């Protein structure tokens, strides 16, 4: 498994408990529009991602992330930085 594929799998596993509608999650799935997450859900989810990878995702970075693929890329970048 490549590093990105591994990160992708771990991120998607973290999404599942918050995927209330049970929609299929792809790179293109958007957090606000498709998963319909509110700000508190985002806070909890981001905290879980931060704990999982021992990284910090600032609100400034979050503002640039709209979909799952972008988050995986961002996490991947931080892990290798």
């Amino acid at each position: 498994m490549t590093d990105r594929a591994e990160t992708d799998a771990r991120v998607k596993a973290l999404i599942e408990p918050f995927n209330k509608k049970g929609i299929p999650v792809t790179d293109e799935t958007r957090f606000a529009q498709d998963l319909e997450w509110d700000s508190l859900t985002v806070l909890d989810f981001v905290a879980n991602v931060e704990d999982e990878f021992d990284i910090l995702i600032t609100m400034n970075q979050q503002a640039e992330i709209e979909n799952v693929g972008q988050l995986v890329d961002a996490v991947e970048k931080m892990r290798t930085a």
Partner: protein
Amino acid sequence: MSGNWSTRSKRCGRPELTDLFSKFDPLIETREQLLSTGITDPFNLVMEEVVSPTVAICNGRKTILLGTYNYMGMTFDPDVIAAGKDALDRFGSGTTGSRVLNGTYVGHKECEEALKDFYGMDHAMVFSTGYQANLGIISTIAGKDDYIVLDIDSHASIYDGCALGDANIVPFRHNDIEALEKRLKRLPEGAGCLVVLEGVYSMLGDLAPLKEMVAVSKAHGAMVLVDEAHSMGFIGENGRGVAEAQGVIDDVDFIIGTFSKSVGTVGGFCVSNHPKFEILRLVCRPYVFTASLPPSVVATAATSIRKLMHGKAKRDHLWENSQKLHAGLKGLGFTLGTEEPQSAIIAVIMPDLEKGAAMWEALLHEGLYVNLARPPATPANMTLLRCSLCAEHSAEQVDEIIGMFEAAGRKTGVIG
């Protein structure tokens, strides 16, 4: 309206105008829906006369005020009024200038001296509003590449200060000490960090665990700013706030406060012991590029602050009021923001905005004004009826208030 815009732009041969107001459409619709039920607009109340810190005339009716931030009831204090009148006569109605040019009068310096005495700190800087104090201090000391770690439920003025300074913003779950510590641990080595906390969170009236949070922040080399807007004058042995009450005021780098709550006028401030603090007067844009407070305002503020130092009896009575109201509302079956009363704010949680607005209106008809708070100002999308008590509310008034809540609650079906 939109038709007019597009007709005109077409006639001029220009591309069709995009209405910048379109983004407000959902809010306009929510508002229209609410008001179409015939309910009084909760965000458009006019105080026709103000009789005292606790009573006003609204819609021609005598109304008990339970939704002001006049915690210590200083707005009609005779010494405060006299100081304001005297300053008006001696210094005129306004300064027409910035603090760093022609806008620093002897009254501004006296007000800063009063704050230094009140907090026992070396430096005090007075801003034109509390909002500007947060905006100015936060944006100036934490800039690009610095980190601000803050409670997710922070006040809008804190978030706006973060945005203005362009710092990296790291929020943590409300009042969660472990969540704060985790984030501090992950900061890049050597990065500048400001932890921003509030003593009392104004929506639910709950306190921050400052003792633990300040210790954790200091252990990780961060500077700490505490906004004590809703605790000044009331909480702590000398009314210095939650940081004083929890014994950590000496470890707090910056305290932000306001004159528009316990002090009873308008204005904001920051106090600090930082040896380089005074340089902020030259580099803090929301301090420099605005007119200073009118002489009468700083005179009333200074007088009020000095009187608040000796406000023990008032503080005690305010605690009694808070406990009495909390117990009374809880006994009636209302859901409250905190299990126990923690401050002078008692938040009553409403099932939804519609019920909240109906309850707000029913209370107004009973002769009681409270704050209706709703998203996005509130945490977790709650609709709240926020009650803030005053040291000048008599025990009888608090009984009356509880009776009004009972009547309005039954009428609207919020309680059974």
